[in-house]
């Protein structure tokens, strides 16, 4: 593909993505007063992240089962209030070990 075409596509992609991110942050300068919207925005992070984890995490690794094991281990640790880094490391280790046990090659 020619260079200018690559640049054009890349520029369009980047611009659209940037505007989506920038406009609300730049335009909403005041504290929103409406209790309903405030409540809504309070819950948004949890809702967005939960919808992003499920069911995608189950397909993030080379086997459904290694991913499911990581989900269980991660959720268990998080529910016990473990730190982010601990949860992340143990979830990764779980995948690694599970895939060894399942006999998936390195």
């Amino acid at each position, binding site marked *: *593909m020619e260079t200018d075409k*690559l*640049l*054009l*596509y*890349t520029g*369009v*992609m*980047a611009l*659209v*993505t*940037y505007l989506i*991110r*920038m*406009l*609300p*942050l*730049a335009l*909403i*300068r005041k504290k929103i007063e409406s*209790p*309903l919207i405030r*409540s*809504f*925005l*309070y*819950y*948004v*992070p*949890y*809702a*967005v*992240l*939960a*919808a*992003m*984890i*499920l*069911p995608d*995490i189950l397909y*993030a*690794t*080379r086997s459904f089962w290694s*991913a499911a094991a990581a*989900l269980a281990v991660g*959720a268990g*640790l*998080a529910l016990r*209030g473990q730190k*982010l*880094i601990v*949860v*992340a490391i143990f*979830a*990764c280790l779980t*995948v*690694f070990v599970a*895939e*060894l046990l399942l006999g*998936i090659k390195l």
Partner: protein
Amino acid sequence: MNHRTTNHKKDFFQGLQDGIPVGLGYLSVSFSFGVMAVNMGLPVWSAVLISLSNVTSAGQFAGIGLMAAGAPLVEMVLTQLVINIRYSLMSMSLSQKADKTLTSLHRFLVAFMITDEIFALASQREGQVSRYYMYGVGLIPVASWTLGTFLGAAAGGLMPEALRSALNVALYAMFIAIILPPARHSRPVMLVVLLAGAGSCFMRYAPVVSRLSSGFAMILCAVAAAFVAAMRYPVEEVEHGDR
């Protein structure tokens, strides 16, 4: 609430530190992106430029597909819009968390780094976030997103599969670590998490709705779950809880 210089530094370094695990997770995902971009016939520099200028996963994967297919620009615009519209929800949420140090100029700059993970980290901060924290937290992930793409594009296939598979789960594990501890102490938050998770699975597996793009489906679930909770449990009482 005025931060002093020491607080600025502290915010920045706290951000840097928080960004390290995200950076590690990004290395593996962007590595895959680099490999895929080159496989689709893009030059290495172009893959790196896409990562540096977009800093988004799903949008980029879809984007290079369209580029390789020579799709019209309109299709590129619409695809990015649908896949990435979730960022506007995050950006809106961040606008309520931004403190005074986030002046217009800095909002323009910081907005560039709003990814799922960086948003997640910013939202779990107690109280408001400063621009110092935002720059700190964005720096390592954006750098490693770009670096990983370069490594994948230039030297794809050198990273063992088992390692990539294990690292791929890291970002999801982070999300889990962010949403579940507060959910333990707050019924409304737990409700939101369960509703959104269940809704998202429904959208993936149920007939008809599973044909919606994943970005759009995610927005629908998140908006619905947050809205239900907002109606049932208005936030006054939880406002000072751990956020």
